């Protein structure tokens, strides 16, 4: 195991009934690195995030985080260790205020008032701090979802379809935000449909199909790979 790899995933499998969602997926990710995860619908991208973050337990395979096996830990224990995520459909605590949304995680990560303030500033939520989360629009809720994950001081952040539904200006700012996060040393695993968005973030992607990795390497090379083209067009 290379000392630089923060996350090492090996031969992960997961099935739902007869459907094999993950079929021996392996990944490596280092601190500060951004890895894109792409593939057609149903190829297992979101399942991968769900298994790494602990929402589902894998049928087989191992997940090591910082050299420690985490595959059997419940979600909150992984969150304490520094694995966190956002959701495709954001899931803030709708009945609580924006700042209360962050206070919950802050207690476990040890983040103080000023850190919550900075985080709100960073994600352009500061003016909304006292508002009920339910009253936020969907772009704001996405940023709140990200803020909730950041205030837990993650070392690995799993980002699920963040770009969907954002306008070009918002996309631009969101890409900036993610790169700032990565530059502070956080490893990012980004599941994304919007390849132009992903291209701004990273050069390295893993292409999945039927729960398996079929390509790993720069995005531009992937775009020329016949197998990749085949699944995207044929699928």
């Amino acid at each position: 195991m290379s000392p630089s790899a923060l996350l090492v995933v090996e031969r992960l499998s997961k099935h739902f009934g007869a459907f094999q969602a993950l079929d021996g997926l392996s990944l490596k990710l280092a601190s500060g690195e951004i890895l894109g995860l792409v593939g057609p619908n149903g190829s297992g991208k979101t399942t991968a995030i769900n298994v790494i973050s602990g929402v589902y337990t894998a049928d087989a395979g191992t997940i090591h985080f910082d050299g420690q096996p985490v595959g059997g830990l419940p979600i909150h224990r992984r969150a304490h260790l520094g694995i966190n995520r956002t959701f495709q459909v954001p899931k803030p605590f709708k009945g609580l205020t924006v700042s209360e949304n962050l206070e919950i995680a802050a207690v476990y990560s040890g983040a103080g008032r000023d850190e919550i303030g900075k985080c709100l500033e960073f994600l352009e939520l500061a003016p909304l701090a006292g508002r009920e989360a339910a009253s936020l629009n969907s772009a704001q809720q996405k940023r709140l979802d990200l803020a909730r994950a950041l205030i837990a001081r993650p070392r690995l952040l799993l980002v699920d379809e963040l770009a969907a539904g954002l306008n070009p200006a918002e996309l631009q700012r969101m890409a900036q935000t993610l790169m700032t996060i990565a530059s502070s040393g956080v490893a990012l695993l980004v599941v994304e449909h919007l390849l132009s968005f992903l291209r701004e973030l990273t050069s390295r992607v893993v292409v999945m199909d039927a729960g398996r990795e079929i390509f790993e390497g720069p995005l531009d090379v992937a775009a020329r790979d016949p197998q990749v083209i085949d699944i995207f067009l044929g699928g």
Partner: protein
Amino acid sequence: MDYWAKGCGLPRGGWYSVGVVALFIVLPFVYGNHDLLFNMMMYLALAQGINVLFGFTGYLPFGYVGFFGSGAYGASLAVLLLHLPPVLALLVGAVIAVLLALLLAPLLRLSGAYFAIASLAASEVVYYIVSNPHLESLTQGPYGISLARAYDADASYAAMVVVLALAFGVVVYLRNSHLGLALQAIREEPVSAEFAGVNVVRERTCAWLLSAALAGLAGGTYAWHVSVFYPKSVFDLNISVFAIVFTLFGGVATLLGPIVGTLLLYGLYNWIGISQPEYFQLVFGIVIVMLVLFLPNGLASLLRRVNVHVP
């Protein structure tokens, strides 16, 4: 983090609790129907118990009366079989209720309405076990309990004042503590709460046990106060129903909501209840329907709409 308000010795909402408790200490000297006061305190405590579970975690315990009844039986049997003094027996009642809650903790895996109905079923099961004629040597079966020797109207009244203070204390704590916030997070989005670092299973079980303990204490104290009762009267579904509606009416997840809901509705119950009781259930039903359709967050949400903070 300044969860604890500055400038006074008590956390937010503390003064209101002290005020209500003081009221029930003073009222017996000016008003003679202590049973009415006692029942009002009992429902205030039960409403707060419902509030701890339903208000903070979103689990609606229709079978809440199961804990009340097991507290009543636990305390009574501690007096009758173990010959404990009543005050210790109340604690036994609470412990029995908590043990029952631990046994039923797997029900928390169910969501929403399933949990509500399953908890109702659980309380019925406890009722049928307690009242089964085959267990007469242990629980007196359907023949009911008589605590004539331990009967003490004033001491049991005082005990209920303490239970009420405890119930308020728990809610004030939850309103002002990280645990309370974490519970509300679980109610809103359990998965996000996990990612915020909350041990969802542990915290909601904690709320479940706290809530059960309050009901157990209230049930034990009720048993002591009436001293003669039948299984049906301490496992009466109406006890759950009253406490739930009082809480909903005032507004969940606040301290004042259930207090105001209980004072208004239970006051109404005794007012109509003495003259024209047949219409009370009707009024009750209409209140529930109107609440759901027009004011799902209770009276407290009216105040919140005009930007008043409700402790």
